[in-house]
């Protein structure tokens, strides 16, 4: 018996495996692609090295005054020195623990909602939604329970940005849901009112709404009745945002198959019970990603309160940059603010994408 031994397999040609092959396939597959790759590398070369030098390698990290910034790069000392102002605005430094506590309470309070095994989430969540705003308002504003009163004019920085965004979305959600239901209503009068309301707010820029709420609201109200600036801005933001939320929710309502409406009617449920027990739970689940997206838009839009003179994160940065002691630090300030905004918006958008995947339980047809 002669045994036949095969020759061992030859390794694949060296240009079809490994980094070289990958680069050939993904970067240099044709002369056009090669050209584009080279162009892209040129762009990267133009942007990245100077940016790295400015932001890290040549940056000034330690010091207390402007004179300490001797190197050619960014002067992060400025951010370090003004960090408190950027985060809390003019909130009295010795009372800032109250803001921190509010944030921690929010984080701790929301955390159980994200743990799958916690029972009775709906009841807990509802209780949290009712209790937390009261606690937060008491803590932030004070005036009761021996807490010193801090006027809203002293609120500022990232804290104010977060306050406007959360109050804005929390106020806009119920109003938006009602508007969406109204727009889909069979009653012409209700429908016309809702459509007009929604289209009006969607057609005008937020700036004019803020202008209106700061200039015209005092005229609309009876004499002597006066709101503070923050509340006026919040009313404007809520009205504006509710129109966008309404359109998102309407999308969800339209996506629910007609059979669900008919089935709930066949069960003998009236309008409110069929909406509350059958349609809305499904529709709202569908539109959670959309609502997160409107929240992102709202979060970016909070920066507009600069126009009516509230000191949110962006305005604090702008003010600090105009300080004679720190002239010429505008770039550092804006880059810092941009980073903070970016971290919030980017993580929210990732979360919304994650939700979209998780909640996609087969409603799409």
């Amino acid at each position, binding site marked *: 018996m002669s045994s036949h031994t095969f020759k061992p397999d030859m390794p694949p040609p060296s240009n079809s495996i490994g980094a070289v092959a990958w680069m050939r396939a*993904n*970067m240099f*597959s044709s002369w056009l*692609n090669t050209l*584009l*790759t080279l162009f*892209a*590398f040129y*762009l*990267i070369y133009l942007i990245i090295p100077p940016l790295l030098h400015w932001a890290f390698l040549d940056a000034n990290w330690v010091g207390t005054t402007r004179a300490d910034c001797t190197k050619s790069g960014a002067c992060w000392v400025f951010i370090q020195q003004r960090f408190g102002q950027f985060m809390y605005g003019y909130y009295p430094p010795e009372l800032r623990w109250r803001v921190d506590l509010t944030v921690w309470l929010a984080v701790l309070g929301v955390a159980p909602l994200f743990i799958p095994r916690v029972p009775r989430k709906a009841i807990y969540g509802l209780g949290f939604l009712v209790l937390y705003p009261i606690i937060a308002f008491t803590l932030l504003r004070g005036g009761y329970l021996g807490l010193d009163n801090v006027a809203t004019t002293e609120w500022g920085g990232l804290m104010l940005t977060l306050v406007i965004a959360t109050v804005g979305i929390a106020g806009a959600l119920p109003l938006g849901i009602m508007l969406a239901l109204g727009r889909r209503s*069979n*009653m*012409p*009068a*209700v429908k016309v*009112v809702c459509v007009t309301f929604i289209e*009006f707010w*969607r*057609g*005008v*820029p*937020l*700036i*004019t709404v803020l*202008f*209106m709420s700061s*200039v*015209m609201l*005092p*005229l*609309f*109200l*009876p*004499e002597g009745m006066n709101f503070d600036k923050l509340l006026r801005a919040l009313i404007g933001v809520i009205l504006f945002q509710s129109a966008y939320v309404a359109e998102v929710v309407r999308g969800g309502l339209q996506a629910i198959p007609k059979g669900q409406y008919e089935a709930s009617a066949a069960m003998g449920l009236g309008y409110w019970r069929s909406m509350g027990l059958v349609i809305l739970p499904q529709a709202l689940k569908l539109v959670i990603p959309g609502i997160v997206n409107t929240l*992102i838009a709202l979060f*970016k*839009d909070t*920066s*507009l309160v*600069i*126009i009516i003179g509230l000191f949110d994160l*962006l305005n604090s940065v*702008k003010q600090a*940059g105009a300080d004679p002691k720190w002239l*010429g630090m*505008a*770039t550092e300030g*804006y*880059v810092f*603010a*941009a980073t903070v*905004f*970016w971290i919030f*918006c*980017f993580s929210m*958008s990732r979360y919304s994408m994650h939700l979209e995947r998780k909640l996609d339980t087969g409603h799409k047809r």
Partner: protein
Amino acid sequence: MQNQIGAPKQRLSLSDPKVRAWLFQIITIVAVVSLGWYLFHNTQTNLQHRGITSGFGFLERSAGFGIAQHLIDYTESDSYSRVFVIGLLNTLLVTFIGVILATLLGFIIGVSRLSSNWVLNKLATVYIEVFRNIPPLLQILFWYFAVFLTMPGPRNSHNFGDTFFVSSRGLNMPAAIASAGFWPFVISVVLAIVAIVLMARWATKRFEETGVPFHKFWVGLALFLVIPAVCALIFGAPVHWEVPKLQGFNFVGGWVLIPELLALTLALTIYTAAFIAEIVRSGIKSVSHGQTEAARSLGLRNGPTLRKVIIPQALRVIIPPLTSQYLNLAKNSSLAAGIGYPEMVSLFAGTVLNQTGQAIEVIAITMSVYLAISISISLLMNWYNKRIALIER
């Protein structure tokens, strides 16, 4: 049937859905009307107490302040209504430039995002993720305060071939001054366009009848270049260029784009392009790969596949969200109030409101302008959308 047996007479009852619907609507109307009346009443009394006379008479009064950029002639003695027109034109200018640039940039980045080229793909992704997550107002302020205002003065400006100068005063560029051949040139361009349209119609008709293709693009291009060129040869050049020159501390002659305009258009273009890129990407991805394969199997080459198969189908998905991005851009142009570019909000709702104190009238006018812009853009896009949708079988 029931009536014959003698059904009980219909009575008004709250458990009748029709009655409830009527009741509900009446309550809604009464609530809306009384709220409106309440606000109107309060406003009337407040205005009386403050001694403000309402009405639009103030529009005829003289404004008495200077404006940094006006597309039409303006002096300080002109009326507020002229200020309004200037603000409106400046808003439209930013929107117009922004829409064109953002569309171009957005399409380039959206296509790059789909490219098989890894580096380009990642670069486009980073661009989109960075710029759409930073508030537009912050971007505007950044470009204005951190970039354009920190540029060197006119004497040390960045010089591009002695014709374009970028300094803290903005971009100085050559101005086109109409000369003798201007009107003949305009007429010749119109003629060329008419000729191209006629040629395209004829070519399409012939193609449909005989199947003989015609190089519409190349012939059209030739027509567009040759007719005006011949005209320019006969009547002389349509324009001559006036190059800006440094005199003392500033430039003389030429056109100048103020830094506010540059910062605003740049920021809005970059911000909106990130959104448009995502729209373009999802639009192109929505056309299934089978369409490309089918086109290939019919013998179409790359170009025709793209032009006749992919793009028409992708556009149908792209147009509606693109419209809302254009609307957003028009609305975001109001952020100019943050840097003082003289457009509707900063000029009219800002300066004019402060000077005259006519809050209600000014805000109402401003809001209706934006509503009108919104409605007309969406009407235009709806019309276009309908035209495209007709292709569907």
